């Protein structure tokens, strides 16, 4: 490649972090440039070009920048560096390694290397001399936190290549050449373990992307049982502040059945990231027994970090997820909160005096959101292996009102909707996912239904539908009781309401902070659902509605004690027995049921 002369420019105007630059050569949209502030180079991105004027958003505070300050363009877009060692890292939104920065406070222009280039890796070749390869094909692998990390043909390579040579098994540094490929003109192209990719562009080096069909276990009953998400699926969690979005996402990140978890802390509280930094190196992955941090990468762009980098942070996280997906892994990608990213877009759009859309958000917000969600998915790689990115984002609607642009746009893009309700949160019914408003589109997929039938039970889907129905009935009974009064309705209404409460307390509610209850494997979920349905199908007799409430409280209490005990432990069985006894107390005997039916 010929050395290109890079464009330079001078600052012409400054409004907050929007800076206009007079450029002396070609500039492309989304190109990265650096603004010189008294010798410190501040990173920025071109977001609009008008003639020779480039509008750039600076990823730092612009305090102290002057008219006439020098700007250097780089000729490339915002890129992430991909290679072994990305796992367990704590990055800022632009993939600078936070742990490598010195001092307690962040300094503008302190840009650190994302990878540990001096580290040595045990490389093992996979491809052989003479193999024909394309972008994304595996050339070899190293071990990263005991997981195989595939070294691939860089995603930027177009067309097919022939492997000329791959180095022997041995220790190498990330930037050592590990293979030489020949392009279609027989030109040699060296490949290292490190490659770069522009974050705004999806990595598509896979064969195809079918509809997802495999259940992704999260350990959270109200999700897995009622509104399941799938490997490669998308979901979002809208809810007013304090309704439990972050706690729910953290719970999912700890318990979900994923190989790798990428967390984008986007414009939210720093202490919430600190919680992950503190806990994840200690907590164990319930499935592998290894420390959670070993399978996690964090992109932290908290609310006090540069606003313009918020948007970048979610793309950085997505690109890292795509990189690992191409290795045939199951990735869980979480972003908290996508509303902050949308707000960052709004701040910028307002400063550029663009025509505003609803609530002053940019007009193309729905397109931006759906484009992002579409990068998730389950894929078949060229070698027949599978990989997936399951993406769950939170949304923070202004005033808790779901009729706002970010929620509405996301609803069109994501397939699972986990609406958190203020009422449930207020009465501490956690997780506060509204069981009636929320949905999973996947449960309608025949592919998933087949999977559930095969892996859980033949009648699972029917049972789930039944439970949902009972919840609605319980709610209706509650409304009737409220309108007509306790004694203005038949006792049956009270029973129906309380049976709904049993489902709520036993299946829906789950204590994220309890050692045992925090995670419930699907086997246990099935057991409890069957138990609850058993109660639901039992006919009880009461003389007065006043007896209904205390009775079901006792039922719920035993169930809860079961939830707090290790599955099938002695304690669990003790309470199960106790529950049986309580049920017997009021159960209508078979003969009585028959008699009743006759007399009707």
């Amino acid at each position: 490649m010929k050395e290109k002369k890079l464009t330079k420019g001078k600052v012409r105007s400054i409004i907050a972090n929007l800076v206009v630059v007079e450029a002396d050569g070609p500039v492309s949209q989304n190109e990265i440039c650096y603004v010189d502030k008294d010798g410190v180079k501040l990173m920025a991105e071109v977001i609009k070009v008008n003639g020779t004027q480039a509008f750039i958003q600076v990823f730092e505070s612009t305090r102290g920048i002057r008219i006439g300050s020098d700007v250097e363009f780089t000729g490339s877009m915002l890129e992430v560096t991909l290679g072994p060692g990305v796992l367990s890292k704590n990055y800022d939104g632009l993939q600078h390694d936070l742990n490598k920065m010195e001092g307690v406070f962040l300094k503008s222009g302190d840009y650190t290397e994302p990878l540990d280039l001096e580290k040595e890796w045990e490389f093992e070749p996979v491809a052989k001399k003479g193999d024909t390869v394309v972008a994304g094909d595996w050339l070899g692998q190293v071990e990263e936190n005991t997981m195989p990390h595939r070294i691939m043909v860089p995603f930027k390579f177009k067309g097919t290549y022939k492997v000329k040579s791959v180095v022997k098994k041995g220790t190498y540094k990330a930037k050592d050449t590990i293979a030489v490929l020949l392009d279609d003109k027989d030109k040699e192209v060296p490949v290292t373990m490190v490659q770069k990719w522009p974050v705004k562009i999806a990595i598509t080096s896979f064969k195809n992307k079918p509809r997802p069909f495999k259940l992704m276990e999260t350990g959270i009953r109200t999700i897995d049982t009622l509104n399941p998400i799938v490997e490669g699926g998308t979901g979002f969690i809208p809810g007013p502040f304090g309704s439990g979005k972050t706690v729910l996402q953290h719970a999912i990140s700890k318990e979900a059945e994923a190989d790798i978890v990428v967390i984008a802390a986007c414009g939210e509280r720093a202490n919430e990231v600190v919680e992950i930094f503190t806990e994840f190196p200690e907590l164990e992955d319930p499935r592998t027994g290894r420390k959670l941090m070993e399978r996690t990468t964090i992109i932290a762009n908290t609310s006090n970090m540069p606003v313009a980098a918020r948007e970048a942070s979610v793309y950085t996280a997505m690109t890292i997820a795509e990189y690992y997906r191409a290795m045939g892994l199951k990735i869980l990608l979480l972003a908290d909160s996508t509303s902050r990213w949308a707000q960052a877009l709004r701040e910028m759009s307002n400063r550029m005096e663009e025509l505003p859309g609803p609530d002053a958000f940019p007009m193309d917000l729905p397109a931006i959101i759906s484009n992002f969600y579409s990068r998730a998915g389950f894929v078949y790689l060229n070698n027949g292996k599978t990989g997936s990115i399951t993406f769950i984002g939170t949304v923070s609607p202004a005033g808790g009102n779901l009729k706002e642009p970010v929620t509405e746009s996301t609803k069109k893009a994501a397939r699972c909707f986990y609406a958190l309700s203020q009422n449930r949160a207020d009465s501490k019914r956690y997780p506060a996912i509204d069981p009636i408003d929320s949905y999973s589109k996947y449960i309608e997929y025949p592919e998933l239904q087949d999977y559930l039938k095969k892996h859980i039970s033949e009648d699972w889907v029917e049972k789930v539908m039944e439970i949902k129905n009972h919840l609605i009935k319980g709610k209706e009974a509650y409304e009737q009781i409220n309108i007509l009064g306790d004694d203005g309705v038949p006792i049956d209404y009270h029973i129906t309401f309380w049976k709904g409460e049993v489902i709520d307390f036993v299946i829906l509610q789950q204590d994220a902070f309890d050692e045992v209850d925090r995670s419930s494997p699907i086997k246990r979920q099935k057991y409890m659902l069957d138990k609850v349905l058993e109660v639901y199908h039992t006919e009880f007799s009461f003389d007065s509605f006043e007896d209904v409430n205390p009775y079901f409280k006792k039922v719920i209490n035993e169930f809860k004690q079961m939830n707090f005990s290790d599955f099938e432990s002695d304690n669990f069985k003790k309470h199960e027995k106790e529950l049986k006894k309580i049920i017997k107390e009021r159960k209508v005997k078979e003969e009585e049921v028959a008699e009743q039916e006759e007399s009707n």
Partner: protein
Amino acid sequence: METKAFQKIYTKITQITKATCSLNAEGVGYEELASVNGRLAQVVKIQGENVTLQVFGGTEDIPTNAEVVFFGRPPTIKVGEDLAGRFFNAFGEPIDGGPEVEGEEREIGGPSVNPVRRMQPSELIATGIAGIDLNNTLVSGQKIPFFADPDQPYNQVMAMVALRAKADKIILGGMGLTNDDYLYYKNVFDNAGALDRIVSFVNTTEDPPVERLLVPDMALTAAEYFAVDKNESVLVLLTDMTLFADALSIVSNRMDQIPSKDSMPGSLYSDLAKIYEKAVQFPEGGSITIVAVTTLSGGDITHAIPDNTGYITEGQLFLRRDTDIGKVIVDPFRSLSRLKQLVIGKKTREDHPQVMNAAVRLNADAVNARTKLENGFDLTDYDERTLGFAKEYSRELLAIDVNIDVDAMLDTGWKLFGKYFEKAEVGIKEDMTKKYWPGKDD
């Protein structure tokens, strides 16, 4: 504020609005300070030669030939031990008749703490108020506002919390404080013999509103000095952040920005977050805790100011008058401390989380019972009991005049459970009820 001899003086203002003025000038840095006929101003926009200044004191009386001098630096404050016991205005100038503070000059609104250098907060702050300590426990390094209507006694409660919090330094950032409230704070701190560990930055209702914009950054830069340089635990009180946000909207509207919800600037979330996120636990032991006040209008927390605040802070303490007992309480439903789980049951007795949750749940049942009553329905025996419970719970635990330690709060909780309910109705883990359920039954 001193100017330097070689500084160029501009005398040609081209545009004046209520809060800003513009002129042509060269070599100006973004966010640099300036003075306009002696009034302090800050650069908020530069377009080529044209520089827009936000004039903190307002632009009344400013003529087009006013003298404008640029300082070549953003706003600063001099920090040192001498800050303790002093009262300053929004610019950091003494208003107590004392001398200028000697010390190192630091830019206000400085950089953020690297998140990987933060420590997880873990020190409980005891206030004696059960509505706080029991249900919404505070932790040092936390940021939390009182949400209260203007007629609630939030300044009194905040002063009480501050004095009981055992902080090394208390920094008061007053924005739009009435002179009476300012004197109230001064008196309370004085009477408690605490003046020597208090630093105040005060903008009263008599001062121009735009000046308020400097108060939080002044207070927090001083706080960072004590927390970082001296490893002290610092409590920052910010009252009233609603008036701060109002000042933000004045400036942004003058700059023709498209307002978003409730005429607030689209950047409100980021602007508030930059302030609140200064709350931190440092690894060397120092900490900054922020307790703020966000006044509501008619209890509406969906307004953009409390709404954005709630999304930023680590909970909120909602003050409300309980007409049943005729006292102000910390509302158990709308209040929240997001950091409480870091200390409850760990730094406090093991039964704390369960007692807290059970009591709130039973209180929710009482709310339902009350609705029934209001709709003219008969109450069940259980309803009656929840109402009885709720009233005592309110009086003995939620009222802001309660002052007991956490164990006593928990004991009170169990006493009320035992008085009104069966174990199964309370739904607490068995090993806890075995240990703490009052009376002799099994």
